[in-house]
């Protein structure tokens, strides 16, 4: 087959991934089909899952309380399985804004938000979010009032964090689906706030 497009040789880590995968298949530990299914499953998760959780919390006060009490359990109520991690939901209020980072690597609530964006994994975001969060937020276009306290969550171990943003003004009476559409991935990481659209 004639090669088209730009060809790049494998990088060190790509080569290591291919070698390891081929070995595991050769030794009968996993099958190619299992690997493909897992990758497909990871790709199929998207921030819409998290947005559903947020919208439900906005319209259902008791769900919101359960969500803040135990995030993983509350997600199960919506049929969202959040295995192998304990979800901590942190709530934005007029007085407190929450923001999530993983300074050590890229821990992220993938079950609810899918694959993290590249900037979340960048050295720039990871090193600066804990040190100058206000400057980082302003680069995302979010100017926070100095009176609003910032709470940065460094997810260094077994917890995963989801920000529950404030429901935007002017959305009274909206359906859960319409509310969910205002909740972007960045709102749930805490680098943006929802806007009615």
């Amino acid at each position: 087959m004639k090669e088209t497009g730009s060809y790049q040789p494998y990088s060190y880590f790509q080569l290591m991934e291919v070698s390891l995968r081929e070995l595991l298949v050769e030794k009968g530990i996993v099958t190619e089909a299992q690997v493909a299914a897992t990758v497909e499953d990871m790709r199929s998760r998207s921030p819409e899952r998290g947005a559903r959780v947020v919208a439900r919390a906005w319209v259902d006060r008791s769900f919101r309380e359960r969500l803040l009490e135990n995030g993983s359990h509350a997600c199960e109520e919506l049929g969202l399985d959040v295995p192998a991690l304990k979800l901590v939901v942190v709530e934005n209020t007029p007085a407190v804004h929450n923001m999530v980072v993983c300074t050590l690597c890229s821990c992220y609530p993938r079950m609810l938000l899918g694959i993290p964006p590249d900037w979340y994994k960048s050295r720039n975001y990871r090193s600066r979010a804990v040190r100058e969060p206000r400057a980082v937020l302003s680069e995302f276009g979010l100017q926070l009032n100095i009176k609003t306290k910032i709470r940065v969550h460094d997810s260094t171990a077994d917890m995963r964090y989801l920000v529950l943003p404030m429901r935007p003004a002017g959305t009274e009476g909206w359906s859960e689906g319409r509310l969910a559409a205002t909740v972007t991935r960045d709102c749930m990481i805490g680098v943006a706030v929802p806007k009615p659209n």
Partner: protein
Amino acid sequence: MIEPRFKPGDQVRVRKTYPLGHIRTPFYIRGHSGVVERICGAFGNPEELAQMRSGEPRQPLYRVRFRQQEVWPAYQGNAEDVLEVEIFQHWLE
């Protein structure tokens, strides 16, 4: 599982030590003091798990709240801005 030695509200300090290996305590927080925000449960010790050992006994894991101005003396912002980090018990004193 090891019993928790701290409870929410307790003042704690992160050990200032630099062992080699897979450590889930960020460098920037070592030596700093904060307050236990909550006990997250008990989890396999990542330093042991990284060596292909069992991680047992499980270590209590805490979320510790630090004042930004304590961590970064030149911090610009609200004096009540905070940073919360998960720290395993054997890193706290």
